[in-house]
């Protein structure tokens, strides 16, 4: 009965929300791409490690706990809940599944396994070891795949391990960890490419192999990378094996370490975890490409914390008219932020590059795996165990259905010899779209170094020199100054409105990775609407010639910052009146939910980030946590460098953005006005749940 109601509600939801849109209210992603939740029986721990659609439309789901389920009736037709049939059991933390010729292929930690149901009773009865690869037994040695190429060959990938002492350093303890490998149907194993760190995403796009990695040491941000045999894509751990005869990769560890200091401990010294050094020249990975044969830089960077923090699956939309206007594009999941990004690839000078946008967020758990249903809807297998996610559930299986309405979006962005061409999904209002002030462009890159992640470095603002809108109102060509090859170009189109209803773009920011600048005719600027130079001076942010400050310190010197005093004011002769200690709990929680202080009292607040992701603690005025959280999100790619502290009068006091394992004490005088203030973490995706009540009493 309950399911029937849900079923009815689901189908009622779509017209209701569309009528809301018609009434001119704020539109959201869910107006176009609502998310449905599939019920899962109590106690069935369905952590989505792998998800595939079978020819009959049922789903094959590899749960992280090792059992393989066939999800029957995932479409909940006739209002019936899905049925979960256990097909196979006890695999070792499988993180990928494919279906071919009536059998499943699953990557366990140490083996590509083919699951046969020879006697036809609906359960696997032959677990074929297609190929087993070495493991050292380190926890981080996860394996992913397979994806099956058009020629029937399969690709799998494997995480690096970490050091015992240097726990921050990815290392390859046994051959082909930190590699992507090809396995032929007969089990023949070939190492294919290395430089991967946590290659959770594998996909075949137009017959070519791509992979997506996670930010970490040597990997500045998540990215979509085209893989060809013999490529080296960044993390040097796997190079340990590049001199073996089987290796198609020719670059050596020494090739990298001689150019970029790996910051190893000297003999006899205690190793120290390397941190970002703002005084160093910010080397980039693409600079190595000029010196070394076999380097492959990302086709599309996915800016960290903006379009995700832990990239998961790559899923091409291909020819799917039931999923809206984005056919031929690619979806990329993200575990940590429980969302999906959308990217559009093009080839310039035979090199892949393209643009990334936000697409759908708000999933219940971490988005790990996706597959297309037979009706063109999108199934999303989720889990967050071990890493946490914005969606607070441990696991979920959800489905995204296109409502049939076209959202107002940048459909794609293409590189032009003098800028970019933005294609929209709906005709634009020509007045706004042809006004250069409707757009802003800046470019930046990430550093290549042994440090975990990277701030945005070498960023520059690019002037919009002119705009030309097509006759049909579906395209705007923007002429941009100072295009830089290999840099990520952030294109904001906040001012552009649609003709119909005057909608703003649902996702107004695009990130274009400009690996190549195409040749061809440039537009004659004199014929275009161009920017008022004086206005541009006002809107142009201060150019930073020097490398950025570290992500762990705000750009304001602490001693001058009244909102973040990290030493006790000298005037506090008797010390603080009250000392508050705060840490975290799993699932994006502060471990203290309510703090009560006296109005005007002297407070020392220590926030110890004992979680495994970054957090800050921001004390804000009553009822303003959402606004501050949204403002922090709006900082976009610059947010990391600012510690996600926006300029906002509602912020009273804050810590800096604390990396895992870091603690900070701040000193402040409690508000004199009693009331229920809030403390909140403004790291993207956290502010909705990670908060507590800061109660000020007389």
């Amino acid at each position, binding site marked *: 009965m309950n399911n029937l109601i849900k079923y009815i509600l689901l189908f009622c939801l779509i017209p209701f929300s569309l009528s809301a849109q018609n009434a001119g209210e704020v539109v959201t992603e869910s107006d176009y791409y609502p998310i449905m939740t599939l019920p899962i029986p109590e106690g069935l721990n369905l952590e989505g490690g792998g998800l595939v659609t079978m020819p009959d439309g049922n789903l094959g789901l590899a749960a992280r706990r090792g059992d393989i389920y066939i999800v029957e009736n995932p479409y909940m037709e006739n209002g019936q809940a899905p049925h979960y049939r256990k097909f196979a059991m006890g695999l070792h*933390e499988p993180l990928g599944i494919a279906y071919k010729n009536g059998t499943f292929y699953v990557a366990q930690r140490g083996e590509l396994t083919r699951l046969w149901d020879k006697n036809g009773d609906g359960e696997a009865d032959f677990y074929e070891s297609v190929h087993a690869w070495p493991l*050292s*037994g*380190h926890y981080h040695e996860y394996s992913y795949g397979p994806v099956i190429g058009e020629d029937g060959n399969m690709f799998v990938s494997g995480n690096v391990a970490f050091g015992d002492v240097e726990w921050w350093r990815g290392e390859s303890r046994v051959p082909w960890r930190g590699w992507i490998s090809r396995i032929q149907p007969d089990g023949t194993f070939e190492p294919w490419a290395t430089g991967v760190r946590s290659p959770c995403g594998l996909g075949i796009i137009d017959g070519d192999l791509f992979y997506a990695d996670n930010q970490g040491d040597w990997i500045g941000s998540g990215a979509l990378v085209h893989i060809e045999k013999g490529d080296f894509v960044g993390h040097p751990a796997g190079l340990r094996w590049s001199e073996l005869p089987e290796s198609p990769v020719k670059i050596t560890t020494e090739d990298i370490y001689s150019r970029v200091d790996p910051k190893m401990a000297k003999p006899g010294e205690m190793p120290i975890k390397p941190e970002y050094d703002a005084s160093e020249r910010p080397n980039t990975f693409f600079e190595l490409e000029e010196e070394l044969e076999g380097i492959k830089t990302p086709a599309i960077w996915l800016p960290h914390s903006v379009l995700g923090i832990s990239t998961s699956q790559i899923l091409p939309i291909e020819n799917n008219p039931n999923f809206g206007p984005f056919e031929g594009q690619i979806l990329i999941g993200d575990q940590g932020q429980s969302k999906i990004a959308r990217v559009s690839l093009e080839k310039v000078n035979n090199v892949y590059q393209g643009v990334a946008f936000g697409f759908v967020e708000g999933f219940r758990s971490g988005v790990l795996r996706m597959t297309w249903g037979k009706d063109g809807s999108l199934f999303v297998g989720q889990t967050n165990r071990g890493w946490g996610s914005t969606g607070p559930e441990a696991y979920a299986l959800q489905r995204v259905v296109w409502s049939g309405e076209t959202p107002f979006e940048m459909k794609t962005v293409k590189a032009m010899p003098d800028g970019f061409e933005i294609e929209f999904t709906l005709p634009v209002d020509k007045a706004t779209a042809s006004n250069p002030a409707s757009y802003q462009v800046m470019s930046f890159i990430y550093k290549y170094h042994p440090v975990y992640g990277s701030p945005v470095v070498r960023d520059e603002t690019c002037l919009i020199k002119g705009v030309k809108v097509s006759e049909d109102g579906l395209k705007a060509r923007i002429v941009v100054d100072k295009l830089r090859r290999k840099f990520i170009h952030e294109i904001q189109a906040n001012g552009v409105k649609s003709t119909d209803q005057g909608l703003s773009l649902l996702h107004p920011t695009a990130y274009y990775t400009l690996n190549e600048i195409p040749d061809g005719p440039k537009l004659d600027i004199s014929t275009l609407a161009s920017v008022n130079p004086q206005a541009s001076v006002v809107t142009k942010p201060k150019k930073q010639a020097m490398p950025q400050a570290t992500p762990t310190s705000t750009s304001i010197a602490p001693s001058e910052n009244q909102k973040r005093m990290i030493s006790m004011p000298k005037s506090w002769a008797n010390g603080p009146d009250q000392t508050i200690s705060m840490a975290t709990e799993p699932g994006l929680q502060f471990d203290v939910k309510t703090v009560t202080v006296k109005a005007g009292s002297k407070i020392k607040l220590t926030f110890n980030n004992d979680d495994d992701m970054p957090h800050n603690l921001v004390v804000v005025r009553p009822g303003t946590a959402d606004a501050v959280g949204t403002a922090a999100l709006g900082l976009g790619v610059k947010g990391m460098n600012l510690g996600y502290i926006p300029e906002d009068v509602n912020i009273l006091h804050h810590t800096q953005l604390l990396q895992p394992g870091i603690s900070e004490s701040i000193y402040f005088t409690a508000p004199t006005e009693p009331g229920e203030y809030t403390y909140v973490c403004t790291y993207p995706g956290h502010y909705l749940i990670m908060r507590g009540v800061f109660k000020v009493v007389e």
Partner: protein
Amino acid sequence: MRKFLNLLFLCAVGMHFTHAQEKSLYQEISLTDLSAFTGLEANWQIAGSVDADLDTDYALTTEPGTGVLVNLPTDKAKSNLFTQMEHGDIDLELEFMMARHSNSGIYLQGRYEIQLLDSWGKTQPYFGDLGGVYQRWDESQPEGEKGFEGKAPRENAALAPGLWQKMVISFQAPRFNSKGVKIQNARILRLELNGRVLHENLDMTGPTRGSSFPEEASKGPLMIQGDHGPVAFRNIRYQSFDPLELTATSLSYEVYQGKFEELPVWDQVEVAYEGKLDKLSQEVVRENEKFIFRVKGEIDVPHSGPYTLYLGTSGHGTLLVDGKEIVPYGLWVRPGTIDLEKGTHNFEAIYHKRDAWYPNGLGLEIEGPFVRRQPLHALSSVPLDAPTNPIGIDLDREPRIVRCFIDYPEAGASREMRIVHAINVGFPSGISYTYDPDRANLALVWRGAFLDATPMWDNRGDGSSRPVGLSLPLGAEHTLGKLSSMEEAWGEKIDDTYKFVGYSLNSAGIPNFEYELAGVSISDQIMPMENSPAFSRTLSFSKNPAGTYYVRLASADKIKEISPQRFLVDQTYYIETSKGKAQIRTQGARQELLIPVEGLDKPVISYSIIW
């Protein structure tokens, strides 16, 4: 993350048995003769070795020599045995061997019986089974209600007759006030049988049935029941304790703030705050990182002799006793040993915390002559966060198969080998095994529950699970090998021609491992035996591989041929062969049991593991 660390700390600081105890403080009961005992009749003897027969009730045979205490009761001689030694609080370890269907008991203080019985194979043990605490008895009650209390073991950890079994008991004697009135019951603090914990903190309200004394007392001899059947003992060792609690006194502390890379020269740094303490605890520290907490105090030790102090610091720390460093600067929990004269001694514990990502914690425990290991710190000084909820994988109606990392315990070493492609199979009847497909090796067998998957499934996990139950390691090396002669050593690696193909499940869900070796297909099936809690293993070859291949059934210190089909391996388990002719060969200090792959047409080798 933090919970994990707290659990680590709790396990390490708060619980006993996690470190090997100071063996030098154990006293051995001499079994060169019977002078350590009283109450003897002819049923009690000293022997050099014993054997029990797996198939014959009450059969126990002896070889001359010393070191083994044997009870062979007859109608005429069937006395109980008492030790000369009388004990109160005690840690007792002993090994014993049951004859088939035999029965005996260990009476602590001559009063509280831990049952000894051949309970091998029983699925639901009760208080009268091996390791149970026997019932008490009240003659005044009507028939059928005379027995009361009694405590069944948590599980049946009994080994087969003829195998040496090990029991470790921590016992606390009842306490009496000055008027002789009992104020605390006798208590089993912990009882382990063959590595399995059967009881913890179990109060016994009075003597059990068959007690030699009606009243409880502070001391009494150990008694071993002699009238119920043949049984043997060896390696009886114990450590007695005074019934006292040590405390740290005259406590004072200093806190130094700031980031120190190492311990400073004390007179060159400024004390941030200081004071006195009435209990040993770090809770006065207001910081949660970048501090040094230095606490000094005194301990009054009751006897002269070697003392071991366990310092636990969540972070770095060091311990000095009488000005001498006994626990070097280091992390987490570690022991240090020092000889102390009876009387008062100074100690200084230094706790240096550099990081904030784990909670503050300081613990100090002591053990020594007649001093049971006990905390000197206040309980609240160590982190008390809730440990993780355990995640078990239970047996099911059909065989359950789980792949994960399994840590193989290497004999004689603390180092463990990780079997990275392990396939674990648990059967509904309660026996399970670990198969290593990299070596075609049956590595571990166990009886009990199936797996503890907490290490794998809690949080990120480390990919490993642990067998739950009475486990028997059978060797981590490969099973199949080629030998050009009987002198050639067993190879370090399996043949390069080896390839694991996979496993198929039969209609009962039992896996059949399939692999290739030297161009021959081999099927390898391990399944429970019908009438005993044991495994049989059958290797079937599609044809005879070229060359002289052997299946190695066991590698051990001593393999004894009981019959052409039955072998006793280190008196730890039996191997019975049903297809193939087994032979023992000696390789240096080790012995191996081998079966050649013989016969031209589809050779089959079959044997069973009984433990």
